[in-house]
């Protein structure tokens, strides 16, 4: 969408100031800014065993894993057709494309972080990491969750790995637009951890910045899993209650209902405009067009 001309923007800002009076407060972000009226969930594919790790490429095609079937599937951005991208993927879970056009994945069955090429073959990036989810920054640094060992790893562009967070039970992981802040879900707790990313990849100043997550009645855990962010800094996390959306100051904006009664594992924005929300929902994958645009980190050229 083209930006309004400077005068319109200035007057809109004036209106915001006038209406808000003398108190500065963060912009509210209700679901009406995200959801399209009359638009619901559309089934993309079914018959899988457990879908996860959706990732979008530069053209808007979405890839996802079917963990127990050891497969990675590809959803074509133009036709919506689902094809098999790779097989014998050894329980690969989370996925994300890097600057180099490779599809990075948590090949949990082999305790490896790998990079899949266009032909479905893979190279090993790191060994000895039981891994669930990952995020790849524009500088080709990865953050990887290792829930079994309650820790988060980083793998730098030179493929050196080290543990950067411990003592939490991580599952999903994502970076803010701008990549200065890392967000990690904590299993069975109604909050998300937020860390500042230091230049060397260390994580500092953690806070339960996003809380409280919505709990279904009678439950004490949100069932939080994978996350994504949009270009306005909203964060989306899949949970038992649906996709929970938070604004950039950590306040909940709302819960988007689940497409079916089954579980949700992960979410990404795909399509050529990256405005279509895709959720991996157990044995199925759904999509839903939105008003917002997802973030990818590979558009920025890597720092020299």
């Amino acid at each position, binding site marked *: 969408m083209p930006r309004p001309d400077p005068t*319109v923007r200035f*007057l809109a800002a004036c209106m915001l100031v006038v209406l808000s009076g003398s*108190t500065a407060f963060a912009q509210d*972000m209700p679901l009406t800014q995200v959801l399209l009226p009359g638009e619901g969930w559309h089934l993309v594919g079914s018959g899988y065993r457990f879908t996860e790790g959706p990732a979008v490429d530069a053209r808007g095609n979405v890839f996802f894993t079917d963990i127990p079937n050891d497969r990675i599937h590809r959803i074509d951005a133009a036709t919506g057709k689902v094809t098999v991208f790779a097989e014998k993927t050894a329980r690969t879970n989370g996925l994300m494309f890097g600057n180099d056009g490779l599809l990075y994945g948590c090949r949990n069955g082999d305790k490896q972080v790998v990079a899949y090429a266009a032909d479905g073959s893979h190279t090993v990036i790191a060994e000895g990491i039981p891994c669930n989810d990952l995020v790849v920054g524009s500088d080709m640094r990865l953050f990887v969750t290792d829930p079994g060992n309650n820790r988060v790893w980083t793998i730098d562009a030179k493929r050196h790995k080290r543990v950067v967070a411990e003592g939490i039970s991580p599952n999903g992981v994502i970076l803010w637009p*701008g990549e200065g802040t890392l967000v990690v879900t904590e299993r069975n707790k109604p909050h998300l951890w937020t860390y500042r990313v230091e*230049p060397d990849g260390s994580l500092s100043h953690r806070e339960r910045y996003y809380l*409280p997550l919505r709990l279904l009645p009678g439950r004490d855990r949100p069932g939080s899993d994978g996350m994504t962010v949009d270009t306005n800094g909203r964060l989306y996390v899949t949970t038992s209650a649906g996709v929970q959306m938070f604004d950039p100051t950590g*306040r909940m904006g709302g819960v988007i209902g689940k497409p079916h009664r089954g579980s949700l594992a992960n979410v990404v924005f795909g399509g050529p405009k990256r405005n279509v929300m895709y959720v991996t929902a157990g044995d199925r994958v759904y999509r839903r067009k939105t008003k917002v645009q997802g973030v990818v980190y590979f558009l920025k050229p890597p720092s020299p």
Partner: protein
Amino acid sequence: MTARLTLLALVLASATQTLAQDNYKLGPDSMVQEGVPQGTVTQHKWTSRKVFPGTVRDYWIYVPKQYDGKTPAAVMVFQDGGTYVNTKRSFRVPTVFDNLIHKGQMPVTIGIFLNPGVIPPTKAGGRSRRNRSFEYDTLSGQYARFLLEEILPSVGKQHKLTDDPAMRAIGGISSGGICAWTVAWERPDRFRKVLSHVGSFTNIRGGHVYPALIRKTEPKPIRAFLQDGTNDLDNLHGSWPLSNRQMAAALKFSKYDHRFVMGTGGHNGRHGGAILPESLKWLWRDWNTKTTATPKAK
């Protein structure tokens, strides 16, 4: 062109409407008065290492002229400190404190005005983590601990501060208002006076439960002044006027010492600023009376 004219018309219309509903004027106790001793305000920076590690924030300390350096002073903390300490905008707390302390309508009080924390980015031009909502809207004892373990001990090194929770007040606007309530609710052994302006007792982070908690919790020794306006916000987090009415009804039910003023203003400090002197007089009433003093903290 049409878009600009329409928007200009909207700006003017909403400005006019805003002015009408927020047509509150400051009274004489909000103005500098001749013959009234003026306190001093100093500005500082705080880097938290313990309770909100990594955050930095500006804060200000007001010391009244009447502070003798020997007698422990009363304390009043304000969230969004920059807004309250500013003597040109709606609240002008240093000026109001000067006037009320001079007349004995409130005790010799040291004001601590804290801005919300920010975690700076590591890269130049990067996005910082704004901590205001996390600090102010979260229902927990964390912000109270920040005051009790970091700020007050530090201010207490330079100035003698009272330990008496009945002589320690906390105030704020919007999320700063519910934050003030949360501090007293969590630590009534340390803070017993609350001032809330257009307080965000809504579901930003679950704060809407306070009316329910107030009704079903053994009453705490808190005195609270709540101000809101019928044109305050109604959005995804809730309705501010309804939430403040709920708070007032709950405080009344549980027989809290409270006052609730509902004007016609919107989500800003104009009404709160205009009635600040009378709010503080009410909040600090009987400060000098031994018979109504609440028991000192152990």
